[in-house]
């Protein structure tokens, strides 16, 4: 197999997706064609892409130049391990999600099938192009196309004002990010109309300009990934979008930002400075913590998942920061460890977050409810959705032996290895950072218990929930696909890390394979067997074994008589669903403990109210401390400027007169 085969396969998939979109547009109102044929085809293409990506990771880099683009700046494409990895991620997620969308959109009212198909497949194709681009112009074209197509998907039902608001916020921040990425490339280019990544790799930058590049990249990609404080669009846009789109945005699109950050920081810049890592680490942890805290107090399930995406992205950023620190001190193996933890977490998150968003999609279709306060007890009505939801929940809560645990385990190992650093301040920093990280993951478990418990367990809080239908076959297939990925990623870390080695070799020129291989395929030993090791298969075997053994033992020793009766609950007579904890109630303790971090509006009923009710609104300080003031300032300035256009022609003549005289003075 020549090294070009994967590249051509990938390009083929990209074109195929575009063609699918256009085909849908051609027969715009033919729902059958679009959803029964085009989306499944797209999903198959996704699987092919995943395979190509897998092949590309281990393959040698292959480059290609298209005869498009600006004069002197044709589109450069390149497939190297890094891009292959993210293409793999895109591929498997897209395969599952397209499968799901085929069923989902068919059930959605008043949408134009062709339009949705076009936007959806353009979105996929542009994400693919982002990972494939090898020059600044093509990269940005793909990048903005991605933003644009996803924007149109977000505002699918644009008649709701809040949806439009969400879309506007999203595209605005995305555009800001794009501009600062553009400027970052502007610094790296050599000002001869040459914008290929090759030349940027070759370019040597002073420390100052390198820092400028890094900060611009951090801002630009952070706007897309949702780093603090640029994350506010995320919890707005995800609930607004249709669920498969939220799944794609959260599972894949955020990762393209991570891809860009890695590409610029480790590939295009040849040296890093240690304090960049500290900055990234700090921002990452802050993002993770705030994300998970806000997730804990949400009452809308998609907002909750959106905030949890922010948390996961924060963890990834923290890992990248650690990698930067290690790499800056030329401790490349440790850098590789941190980097692999980051990448591993990316792909894990793609798996379980897509799964969970799809689950919410099915729930919404079955119940037309998004508010946790009106759900509950669905495990009895929709077992498929519920059990795969459980898989996703356990995975995202970082519980062994599923995949979420592996990446957090690797990351913690990386943290525990920091004492090797020559910089004592950093050593002091490590315990705090570790603490924050662990706290975040513990809170994540809290959040997910809340999510799953309130949606699927307990008694249904509304009558209509009793008529909820379980997922259709297409949706089940998607669940199986993604759920299986989560399990496999959890069970075969050694194999995955083996694949990731070529990426870490590319970025920080070191691999873990030496350490990993030392104790066979069964054990993950990042540093050495004595130091730390983890074996998911054995672990699973242990749990399953002991559970089964216990079960059989109990069965064999004692009778299995079971009586059904009303719930006891300390003997309280009638139990109504309203007695269970609501989502708000479940989040209450977190709200109380971390009160200063929230901006809480409470409305307390007065004793005299006839119809007393209580509500509280929890908002983000950042919105009020950062965004509103900026908006106000802009408004103020524009009011100021507006005076210029005063309507009196004499005034205008005076402008011209004065300008003339001023310039005449100037040039003398």
């Amino acid at each position, binding site marked *: 197999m020549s090294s070009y085969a994967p590249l051509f396969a990938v390009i083929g998939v990209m074109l195929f997706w575009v063609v699918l979109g256009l085909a849908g547009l051609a027969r715009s109102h033919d729902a059958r064609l679009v959803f029964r044929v085009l989306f499944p085809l797209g999903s198959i293409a996704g699987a092919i892409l995943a395979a190509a990506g897998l092949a590309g990771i281990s393959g040698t880099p292959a480059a290609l130049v298209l005869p498009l683009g600006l004069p002197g700046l044709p589109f450069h494409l390149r497939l190297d391990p890094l891009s292959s990895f993210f293409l793999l991620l895109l591929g498997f997620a897209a395969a599952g999600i397209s499968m799901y969308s085929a069923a989902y959109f068919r059930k959605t009212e008043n949408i134009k099938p062709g339009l949705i198909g076009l936007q959806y497949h353009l979105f996929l194709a542009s994400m693919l192009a982002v990972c494939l681009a090898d020059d600044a112009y093509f990269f940005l074209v793909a990048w903005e196309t991605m933003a644009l197509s996803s924007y149109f998907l977000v505002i699918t039902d644009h008649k709701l004002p809040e949806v439009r608001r969400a879309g506007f916020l999203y595209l605005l921040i995305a555009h800001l990010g794009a501009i600062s990425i553009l400027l970052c490339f502007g610094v790296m280019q050599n000002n001869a109309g040459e914008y290929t990544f090759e030349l940027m790799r070759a370019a040597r930058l002073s420390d100052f300009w390198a820092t400028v590049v890094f900060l611009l990249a951090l801002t630009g990609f952070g706007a897309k990934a949702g780093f603090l404080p640029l994350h506010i669009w995320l919890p707005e846009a995800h609930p607004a979008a249709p669920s498969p789109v939220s799944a794609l945005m959260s599972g894949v699109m955020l990762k393209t930002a991570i891809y860009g950050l890695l590409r610029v920081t480790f590939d295009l810049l040849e040296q890093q400075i240690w304090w960049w890592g500290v900055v990234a680490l700090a921002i990452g942890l802050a993002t993770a913590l705030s994300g998970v805290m806000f997730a804990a107090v949400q009452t809308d399930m998609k907002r909750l998942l959106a905030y949890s995406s922010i948390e996961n992205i924060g963890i990834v950023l923290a890992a990248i920061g650690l990698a930067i620190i290690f790499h800056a001190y030329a401790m490349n193996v440790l850098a590789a460890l941190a980097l692999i933890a980051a990448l591993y977490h990316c792909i894990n998150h793609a798996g379980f977050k897509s799964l969970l968003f799809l689950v919410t999609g099915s729930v919404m279709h079955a119940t037309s409810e998004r508010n946790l306060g009106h759900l509950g007890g669905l495990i009895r009505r929709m077992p498929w959705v519920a059990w795969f939801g459980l898989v996703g929940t356990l995975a995202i809560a970082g519980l062994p032996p599923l995949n979420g645990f592996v990446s957090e385990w690797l990351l913690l190992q990386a943290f525990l290895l920091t004492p090797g650093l020559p910089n004592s301040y950093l050593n002091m920093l490590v315990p705090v950072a570790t*603490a924050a990280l662990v706290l975040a993951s513990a*809170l994540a478990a809290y959040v997910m218990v809340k999510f799953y418990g309130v949606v699927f367990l307990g008694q249904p809080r509304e009558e209509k929930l009793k008529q909820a239908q379980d997922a259709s076959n297409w949706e089940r297939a998607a669940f199986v696909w993604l759920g299986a990925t989560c399990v496999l990623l959890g069970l075969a870390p050694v194999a995955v890390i083996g694949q990731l080695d070529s990426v870490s070799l590319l970025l920080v020129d070191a691999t873990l394979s030496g350490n990993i291989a030392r104790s066979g395929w069964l054990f993950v030993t990042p540093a050495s067997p004595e130091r730390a090791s983890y074996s998911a298969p*054995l672990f699973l075997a242990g749990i399953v074994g002991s559970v089964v053994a216990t079960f059989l033992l109990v069965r064999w020793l*004692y009778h299995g008589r079971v009586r059904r009766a009303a719930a006891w609950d300390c003997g*309280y007579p009638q139990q109504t669903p309203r007695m269970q904890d609501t989502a708000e109630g479940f989040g209450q303790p977190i709200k109380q403990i971390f009160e200063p971090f929230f901006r809480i509006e409470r409305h307390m009923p007065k004793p005299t109210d006839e119809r007393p009710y209580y509500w509280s609104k929890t908002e983000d300080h950042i919105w009020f401390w950062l965004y509103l003031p900026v908006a106000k300032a802009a408004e103020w300035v524009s009011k100021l400027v507006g005076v210029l256009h005063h309507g009196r022609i004499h005034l205008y003549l005076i402008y011209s007169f004065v300008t003339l005289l001023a310039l005449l003075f100037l040039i003398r």
Partner: protein
Amino acid sequence: MIQFVVSQLVQSLLVVVSAPLMLGWVNQCRAWLQNRTGPGMAQPYRVLGKLFVKDAVIAHNASPLFRLTPYVVFGCMVLAASIVPVLATDLPFSPAADVIALVGLFALARVFMALAAMDIGTAFGSMGARREMLVACLAEPALLMVFFTPSLISGSTALNNIVETLAHSSLAIYPSMAFAAIAFLMVMLAENARVPIDNPATHLELTMIHEAMILEYSARHLALIEWANAIKLTIYSAIGVALFLPWGIARAGEWLMMPLSIAAFVAKIAAAGAGLALLETMSAKMRIFRAPEFLGMAFMLAVLGMLTHFLLER
């Protein structure tokens, strides 16, 4: 190889079987301290036996998850028991899971417990689940930080390696371990639903945490859960003694050391149990919203432990 498996099984079974005894011992000590003649150390066994023969009563709307949970919880605890070095540090299973995985294991059990508690949809169930998760999400990081201090000292996160280093390296005083020990004690109280966070002996509605979660369980399911809790308590004590007074534990393959180490283990565990009882009798249960402060303190101490390690011991 074979003797490894044997020692593995011996240690795990020892913990699993002797766990109720430990519980009984603690209760007995409490009885003595309160000038009561206690029910006797075998009481927990009797309780378990009785529960096992009873018919299980389950709420109408209980889902399969509800019935699965007791087995999962019990299985997790058994597995945990096989990770922690009790008598000797040669555990063939320990490479499969280090301290982080151990914490993960506890978390897994806890999450299932909480979900099962929410499954029936009673007021107390969800309240208990919420409080349990709250306590846990503060205790778990503290616990992990506690583990990190010794693992930084010993340069390993595998529990048996840690214990090996601590036990058999030339005797060194680790100030950081003092912080870690106090933090660990606090976490242990919280995680095992002991006073001052929770009171295992109460069914007073508004104060209970753990009991509230298992209200709906009966018969064998209840038995499994109670047993699992006993194992958990034992494991915690075992970890405590293994980390903070590791002396006398047998090195890999030292069969002659075995009897000695058994004696040492029993003695240490007994002491720990007595100490626990004493602590419980002396302190009063605190309000649920004081718990975060308590655990926050534990968390801070653990972090301080790591800091002091960097400060003084490198």
